[in-house]
C-alpha cells in the first residue's frame, strides 16, 4: 500500500465509520428486524416469523391507503411546486432590471423550518379563524367562510396539507431553475431568434432541452422529499381526521410508537426504502442519463 493510498484511507476513515455506524448498520438492523415478531419496548425478546410481517403489511387496508395517500400528496405537491417554481424562474429571468429583490424574498422559505410552515398553514386553514377562507369570501370565490373545511373534510385534507409543502418548496424549484436558466448560452437563443423562432418555439426547442438535467435533479430531489414527508403533515393534522391524512411515513411511525410493533414497522420501513431507491434509480436512468449521454 503506497503512501498515497494510506492518505486516502485515513481521510475517508472517519466518514466511513460514521456512515457505517449510523446508516449502513441501522439499515441492516431494519431488514433483520423485519423478519421477527418483536415489540418496540422489548427488542431482546424476538420470534422468527419469516415473511409474515411483509404479508401483513402488503395485505393491510390501512397500509395500502396510506401508501396511496403518499402518492396523491407527492404528485399533487410536486405538480404545483414545479409549475409555480418554474414559472417564477422564467419571470425572474425575463425581468429587465435583474430580479435580485424578488429572489431575496424567494430565498426565505428555504430556511423556514417545516414545522413552522405546517403550523402557519394550519393557522391559515383552520376552521373559524383561518384567514384564507375570509380572503376567498372577499374575492367572491366562496359565499361563506365555513364553505370549505380544509383540514376536517376527509376527502380533501390530503391535498390541503400539501399547501404548506408547495409554499415551502416552490422557492427551491424557482432558484434552482433560475440558476439553470442563467446558464443557457445567450447566443443560442439569439441564433434561434434570427432563424425566426418565436418566443414559444425558442422556449420549446432551446430552453427546455437544455434545462433537462436541471429539471431531472429537481424532480428527483423533490419527489423523494415529498414522499418522505412527515413533520409538515403531522403538525397540521397528526394524520387525521380519521386517518384521512395519514401518509406512509406516519403509518410506520404510528405502528412503531403507538402499537409498539417493531417487526411490522421494520417491514414497512424496508419496503419504503426499496420503493424510494427504485424510484430514484428509475428517474436517474430515464431522465438524467439521456441528458448526459
Amino acid at each position: 500500500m503506497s503512501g498515497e493510498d494510506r492518505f486516502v484511507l485515513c481521510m475517508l476513515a472517519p466518514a466511513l465509520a460514521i456512515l457505517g455506524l449510523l446508516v449502513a448498520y441501522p439499515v441492516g438492523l431494519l431488514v433483520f428486524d423485519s423478519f421477527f415478531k418483536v415489540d418496540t419496548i422489548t427488542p431482546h425478546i424476538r420470534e422468527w416469523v419469516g415473511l409474515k410481517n411483509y404479508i401483513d403489511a402488503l395485505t393491510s387496508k390501512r397500509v395500502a391507503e396510506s401508501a396511496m395517500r403518499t402518492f396523491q400528496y407527492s404528485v399533487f405537491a410536486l405538480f404545483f411546486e414545479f409549475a409555480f417554481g418554474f414559472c417564477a424562474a422564467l419571470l425572474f429571468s425575463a425581468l429587465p432590471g435583474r430580479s435580485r429583490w424578488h429572489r431575496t424574498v424567494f430565498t426565505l422559505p428555504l430556511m423556514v423550518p417545516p414545522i413552522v410552515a405546517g403550523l402557519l398553514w394550519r393557522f391559515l386553514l383552520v376552521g373559524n379563524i383561518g384567514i384564507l377562507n375570509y380572503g376567498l369570501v372577499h374575492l367572491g370565490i366562496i359565499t361563506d367562510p365555513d364553505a370549505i373545511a380544509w383540514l376536517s373534510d376527509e376527502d380533501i385534507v390530503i391535498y390541503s396539507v400539501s399547501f404548506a409543502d408547495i409554499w415551502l418548496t416552490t422557492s427551491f424549484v424557482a432558484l434552482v431553475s433560475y440558476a439553470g436558466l442563467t446558464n443557457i448560452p445567450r447566443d443560442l437563443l439569439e441564433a434561434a431568434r434570427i432563424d425566426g423562432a418565436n418566443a414559444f418555439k425558442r422556449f420549446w426547442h432551446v430552453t427546455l432541452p437544455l434545462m433537462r438535467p436541471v429539471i431531472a435533479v429537481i424532480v428527483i430531489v423533490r419527489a423523494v422529499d415529498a414522499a418522505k414527508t412527515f413533520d409538515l403533515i403531522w403538525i397540521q393534522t397528526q394524520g387525521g381526521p380519521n386517518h384521512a391524512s395519514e401518509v406512509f411515513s406516519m403509518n410506520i411511525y404510528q405502528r412503531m410508537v403507538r402499537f409498539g410493533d417493531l417487526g411490522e414497522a421494520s417491514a414497512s420501513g424496508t419496503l419504503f426504502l426499496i420503493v424510494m431507491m427504485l424510484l430514484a434509480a428509475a428517474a436517474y436512468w430515464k431522465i438524467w442519463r439521456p441528458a448526459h449521454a
Partner: protein
Amino acid sequence: MRRARRFNINGILVNAAALVLVLSYALPYVYLLMTSIKPAADVQQIPPSFLPAVVSLENFREVLQSSALPKAFASSLTVAVLTTLLSLAVAVPAAYVATQYRRRITTLFLLFALVTRMVPSVSLGVPLFQLLKSLGLLDTIPGLVLAHTSAAVPLALLLMSAFFEGVPKELEEAARMDGCTRFQAFRKIILPVMIGGIAVTALFTFITSWNEFLYALLLTSEATKTAPIVIAEYNSVYGLAWGAMTAAAVLYSLPVIVVTLALQKQIVGGLTFGAVKG
C-alpha cells in the same frame, strides 16, 4: 419604435406578475409575524384581521416565561452546533480525497452518500431508536447528535465535494514541492482556501439539525426535547394556544431567516451549485 413600446408593455406585465407572485408568497409569513404581536385574546377573534389592532408582546412573554421553550432552545442549539462540528470534521477530509484522489473506493463512497439522501428518515428512525436504546443514549444530547449526524454527513459530503471540484490539483502539488506532507498540505494550504465553502456547508448542516423534527420526536423526551417538539406540543398540551404558538414559531424561525438574508448569495450558490453543474 413599435417594437420598443411593445417591449415596455411586456416589461410592465412581467414586473407586475413577478410582484404579485412575490407578495402572495411573502404574505403567509408576514401574517404569522402580525399574529404573534397581537394580544392573545385577539388572535382567536372571528373574523380574523390581518393587522394587529394593538401591538403587544404578551405572547412572547408567555412562551419565554411559562413554558418549556427556553430549555428546548438550548437543546436545539447544542445539538445543532455539535452536529455541525462532527459532520464537518468527518465530511471535509472525506470530500477532499473523494474529489482529488479519484479511485473506485471514493466513487463508491460518494455514490453511497448520494443514496443515503434517499433513505426515508422514518425507515432509519426505527432502527436508530433501537441502537440508541442499547447504547443508553435515548433522550440524551449525544444520542440526538448522532441521529442528526447520520442525515447531515451525506449532505455535507455532497456540498463539500462540489466545492472541492473547483480546487486545482496544482495547489497541493506546489505545497508538496515545498516539503509539506499530504496532511500538512491539506491543513495549511487547502483548508484556508476553502473557508467560504466550509462556512456555507456548516450553515446548511446547522439548519438541517435545527429544523429536524422526526428524530427528535422519536429519540428525545422530557430531558432533551428540542424546540420544534415543544412547539408541536402546544397543539395538545395547552389546548390550542394559537397566540403562544405563533410567538414560539417566530422565535424559532426568525433567527434562521435573518442569517439566511445576511448570507443569501452564498446560500443560493451552495444550493444551486450541485444541481446546475450536474
